[in-house]
Structure formats: C-alpha cells, structure tokens
C-alpha cells in the first residue's frame, strides 16, 4: 500500500516539474497570441474612420510596456506625466514604464529582443540597429497607424525611423553634435572668438593648454563620445558623397578617411584631454560631463543633451533650475570647424535623434500614445525642459534657451546630416568603429591601421 501510493506521487512530482519547466515557454506563447488577438481586434476598431482615443469603458484593457532612457529629471517626470495623462483619457490603457540608463538599456534590450519579449515602445536611434530588428521581425510596421500624424513631424527625423520606406518608429528629439565650450575659460586663455577652422581649433587647444587649462574633456572609456571626433573629421574630409559611398561599400580604406585619422592624430598629439580620459565614461562625476560641469575642462564635443548633463554634474541647484544658472561659467556652442582641403561643407552635420520603435506585439494604443507625446502641445512641453529639441513642426517656439537655440540653428543650416556612425551601421560594425577610435585615442594604432581594422570588421 505504502509503496503503491508513493510511486504515483513521485511520478506526479516529476510531471509537475516538467510542466513547470515547459510552462515558461508555453505561457509565453499563450501571452503572445492573446496580445496579437487583442491587437487585431483593436486595430479593426481604430481603423474605423474618425476614431480617436475615445474614453469608452467597454474597450478591452491593454498594457503598453514602455522602455525609455530619460533617466534624469525633468524629462523622467515629464514622460511619467504624459503617461498618466494618456491613461486618464484612455482608462483601458495601462502604460508600464521602465526607465534605464543608456548603457544598461542597450544590454537589457538585446536580451529581451533575443528572448522574443519585445517591449511595446522602446528607445531607438534608427539606423543599422533598427534594420536588424526589422529583419528579425521584432518591430511593427506602423506606416498605416501613424499616417494621421507623422506628417506633423520634420521629415529628416521621421526618415531615421523608416527602413525601405516603411515606418517602424516615431521620433521626438533631433539634434546634432557640436562643440560646447566654457566661455570664461576661453577668455582666461585669451581666446575671444570660437574657431572657424580646424587649424584655429588646434591653436586654441594649445592656447588653453598654455594657460594651464585642460582643453578638452572626452569620455573615451564609453568610446562613442570619442567616435564623434573621428566621424566628424570623416564627414569634413569626405563630405556627403564619401559618407554615402561608405554606407554602400563599407570600405574605410579611403584617402579621405585616413586623412581624417591624421587630423585626429594632430589633435591627440597635443595631449589635450583630461587625466584618465581613456577610462572616463560620458556621464559620471569622473566622466566627460563631470569634468565640464565642474569647470575642470573647457571643451566637449557632444549633442544637444550636453548642457543638461553638465548641469546635473555641477552640483549646483536642482534639475528644475535653468541650466545656465547651474553651469560653471558662461557656455557657448560652435559647429565642428571647417577642415582645409576637405570635400565636406562646414555646414554638414553629424547627429541623430531619439525616438521610440514599436514592438511587434504592441497594441495600436502604443502608437496613439506616440501621437499624444509628439502632438504640438506636448512637444512644446518637452522642448521647455531645455533637454530636448522637439521634432514636431511649430514646437521650435518652445526652445528658448540659448544653448538649444544654437543647436537648432546649426541643424537648420545643415546641408547634410550624417547619423551617428555607431548607430548607422549594424551593432557589430558600430562597436568596431568605437573600439578602433579608442585605440586611436590611446595612440596604439596609426590612422591607416584604424581604417584597415574597421574595414576588416565590416567584412566579418
């Protein structure tokens, strides 16, 4: 008796274990199907003409998983506010926000994508990364769903979230990289105007050095801040034509790009960077933003988000204060200077945007939410944070602080904008570009070897 009872028990336990083990995959599939069904149901409803976010209680509840990287105030709070407002207007929608730091986000997203557990809305820079996600069928074609409002956004930004003419995401921010500089430190070094050419820039760097000021802070430990220099010099040397060419043939063994490396070498040879720059991250007390925010270095090549980060590291004031009051001295912005003999125009830009890609299983409410946060009123509120350059037409009026205005002007003058190279290419090649740039900054490779190494990485 005793034994007879025991064996089935063991078998039962075994079965339970097997079930539990398989349960993970099984229930995941079930979830997916449910979401898809909901999605189709709802899309049929919303496809009907004239439907907006109607506050009808009988709608099936949906959840939108939203991953973003605006992990500091005021943007972090603003996104939460937008989500709360949207949920209030659409009671059937629940928006779950996951906020992550940039680098942590990249690692976490990769894991989730691989597991097929795609967030409904997630930070995207477009480019090669988005293309890979499209090829793997992880993001959703929202051409149809977004057609009602995508025309309200600037074409340049919208285009970043298209692959082969199909819309997969919606931008909210577009800027370009340029030089942020501390005017007070420039004055101390006897420099009265920002440099217009690369040679002048190198002279100013030397002048700052002679005055005992660390000329440049760069977060070469994170690598991408250093890649801004190399990329910009490539754009100045090669121009639009060369950049479009390399996007096709992935061949960096070109005289223009080697020349870009040589020019970068001239800068590095001046030893203009803060101590420990090779290990320094971008945004940390011991990073690039920390050195600039505390007035320990004069120049930083960074995008429109630069001043906000410097202010946060300055230890002065609170996030709600105007950025200018928190910075160590008066700051200014100048575009990357012209390079003599280069094919690129001094108005060619380098930058990119932020936006949200729409996951494959996202309900249409996710796109409606994107419509909400990029609508004119909300875009203006976004612009007023001084952290973002909204891409909604007409929202430029919200940009009033001189820093963001300078970037906006540079962007307005841009004859060509190249997307960040580490986002433009596949993640693998982007990482190779960044790694090679770090070795250039460490002085362990020649410009020729650098071009060779990137080309080899592209060849696989």
């Amino acid at each position, binding site marked *: 008796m005793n034994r007879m009872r025991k064996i089935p028990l063991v078998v039962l*336990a075994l079965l339970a274990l097997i079930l539990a083990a398989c349960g993970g995959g099984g229930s995941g599939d079930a979830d997916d199907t449910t979401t898809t069904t909901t999605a189709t149901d709802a899309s049929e409803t919303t496809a009907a003409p004239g439907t907006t976010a109607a506050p009808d209680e009988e709608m099936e509840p949906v959840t939108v998983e939203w991953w973003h990287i605006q992990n500091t105030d005021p943007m972090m709070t603003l996104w939460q506010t937008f989500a709360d407002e949207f949920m209030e207007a659409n009671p059937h929608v629940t928006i779950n926000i996951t906020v992550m730091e940039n680098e942590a986000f990249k690692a976490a997203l990769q894991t989730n994508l691989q597991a097929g557990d795609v967030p409904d809305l997630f930070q995207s820079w477009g480019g090669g990364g988005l293309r890979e*996600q499209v090829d793997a069928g*992880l993001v959703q074609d929202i051409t149809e769903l977004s057609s009602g409002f995508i025309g309200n956004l600037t074409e340049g930004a919208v285009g970043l979230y298209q692959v082969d003419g199909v819309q997969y995401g919606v931008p909210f921010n577009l800027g370009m990289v340029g030089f942020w500089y501390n005017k007070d430190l420039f004055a101390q070094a006897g420099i009265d105007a920002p440099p217009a050419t690369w040679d002048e820039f190198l002279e100013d760097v030397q002048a700052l050095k002679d005055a005992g000021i660390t000329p440049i802070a760069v977060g070469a430990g994170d690598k991408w801040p250093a890649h801004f220099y190399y990329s910009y010099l490539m754009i100045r040397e090669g121009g639009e034509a060369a950049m479009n060419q390399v996007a096709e043939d992935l061949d960096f063994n070109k005289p223009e790009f080697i020349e870009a490396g040589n020019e970068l070498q001239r800068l590095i040879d001046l030893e203009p960077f803060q101590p*420990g720059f090779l290990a320094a991250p971008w945004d940390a007390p*011991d990073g690039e933003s920390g050195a600039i925010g505390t007035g320990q270095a004069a120049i930083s090549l960074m995008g429109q988000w630069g001043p906000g980060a410097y202010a946060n590291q300055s230890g002065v004031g609170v996030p709600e204060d105007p950025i200018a009051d928190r910075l160590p001295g008066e700051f200014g912005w100048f575009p990357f200077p012209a390079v003599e003999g280069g094919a690129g125009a001094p108005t060619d830009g380098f930058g990119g945007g932020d936006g949200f890609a729409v996951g494959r299983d996202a309900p249409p409410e996710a796109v409606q939410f994107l419509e909400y946060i990029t609508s004119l009123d909300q875009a203006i509120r976004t612009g007023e944070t001084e952290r973002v350059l909204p891409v909604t037409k007409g929202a430029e009026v919200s940009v009033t602080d001189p820093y963001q205005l300078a970037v906006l002007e540079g962007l307005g003058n841009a004859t060509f904008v190249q997307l960040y190279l580490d986002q433009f290419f*596949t993640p693998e090649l982007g*990482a190779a570009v960044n*790694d090679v740039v*770090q070795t250039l900054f*460490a002085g362990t490779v020649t410009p020729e070897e650098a071009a060779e190494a990137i080309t080899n990485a592209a060849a696989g």
Partner: protein
Amino acid sequence: MTTHKTVDTKADRRPLKGVPGVAPWPVIAGFLLPALALYTVFVLYPITQSIRYSGFSWNGLEPLTNWVGLENFRTALADPLFIEAIQHNAIIAGLSLLVQIPFAVGLAVLLSRNLKGRGVFRTMFFAPYVLSEVVTGVVWRQILRPDGLIDRLMGSVGADGLTQEWLADPSIVLYSLFFVISWKYFGFHMILILAGLQLIPNELEEAASIDGASWWQGFRYVTLPLLGPTIRVSMFLSIIGALQLFDLIWVTTKGGPINASSTMATYLVDWGFRRGQFGYASAVSVIVFGLSLIVALLYQRFVLRRDLQGALTA
C-alpha cells in the same frame, strides 16, 4: 542510530526492498529530482544550447540558419584580442598564486598566535570578502579615479610624483585591478588557512621546538606540510576565480581601456551583448568552458590527488 533502526525495520517488513540500509528508489528519486531538474534546466540545457549556437553565425535575432561549422572557433583562437584576454586571466591567476596566497598564509600564521585584538584583525581582514564584487568595483573606481582618494592620499604625503592613471593607463590597469581583487579575496584565503592551522596539533610544533628546531624550521618542516591540503584548495579556488573573473572588471573598466584589462568573460559578453554576435560568443563560451574544465581536471589529477582519494580523477 535511530534512523538506522527505522530503515532496518522497514526493510524487514518488505523483503523485496533490496539492500538493507539503502533507501528505496522512489525516495532516492524524490530527493534527487528537484536538484536534477534545476541542474538540467539551468546548467545542462544552456550548455548544450551554447554548443549548438557555436556552430552558427547568428546575431541572436534572426532564425538559426547560417551554419558555419568550426569557423567561429577558428576566428576566436586567431583573434589576438581573445588570446590577450586569456593571457590576462593567466596573469591574474599567476599573481594570485605568487602574491595573494603567500600573503594570506603569512597573515594567518601571524593571527593564529596569541595576539592582542586578533579577533578584531581577523574580522577586519575578512570584511572585504563580504562585499559583493559590484560594490567593491564601484567603490574602488572612485578611489582609483584621477584625483581620487589614492591620488590625494599620495599627494598629502608628498608622493604626488608617483601617482598614476590607475585605471586609465593600459599598462597599469590590470595590476590595479589585481590589487583590488587581492584586497577583496585575501581575507577569505586567510580564514581558510587559519582553519587549516587550527587542525594542526600543537604537540607537533612543540615536539619540533624541543628537538631544537628554530621557528622557521618548525614552520617550514612541520606547519607548512600539514597545511598542504588547505593551501592546495585555496590555490584551486584562486585559479578558478581568476578564470571566471568578470563582475569586478566589468564594473570598473569593462575590460578597457583598449582591452588592457579584458578577461575571457568580458570578451565574451562584449561580443554577445554589445555586438550582438551570439553565435560567435557561444563559441567563445565553449572555449572558456573547455579551458576551465581542463585546468580543473589537471589540477585535481596532479595537485589534489592526495587530498581527494577516490575522486573521479584520482
């Protein structure tokens, strides 16, 4: 004793039960199953999956279609950066054996004596081991940063000429990290060896000193040989730890700058999660697994032989 009796009586009642004193198979299975299931799901299954992935060129997103055979292994073993990473592991392992263990032995011998406040010292030296690697990494990154605590401390005693870019200079960073690793783990080895010392009967050392052995002779010919098994286990843990080294490096330098502090594990994570080359990263993980297995087996076979009578490799 009581358990024995119960088992015996049960076995008497049911003669088909097999060898007396051995639990019936459902009981064995019942106890084994939970652990076995977990082991299968979280260890065996991922390992077989890694081996499978390692034959593909795969970015982790697309379907597994691009079979490349052993190409990933060839690429990895031909990549100077991977070889460099292996060398870094070897350097850390070697330094641990040469510096960290002798230091721990010395401290343990010192603290096994009747020293005033030795309890306090033992706790103090052991404390770093209690911290997680991530906490250790974050704290030491701040201490070692330019113009950080170390630099200021050195400056205040007039040694500012000797300050270095501890984590940013590619030729120094590995040794800075070795220092941090030793700081974290020497206390652990010290405790192991202290325990070993307490197992050595006092009479033996007394006998040696009565026979006229100096302190050094007593230590060299009595204490040290008897401490052998403990030291060998300590060394084994050190080597395994050095091979697995990841968290602390990832938090402080991510293996940089320019891969100067990379280890096999940071190399593998970099290729998997930053470059999205999961096929290649899987191949690297298989190599790392193989290397660790070989080292562990060889060590057991040749060094731990006497300590592990009856073990698999003995």
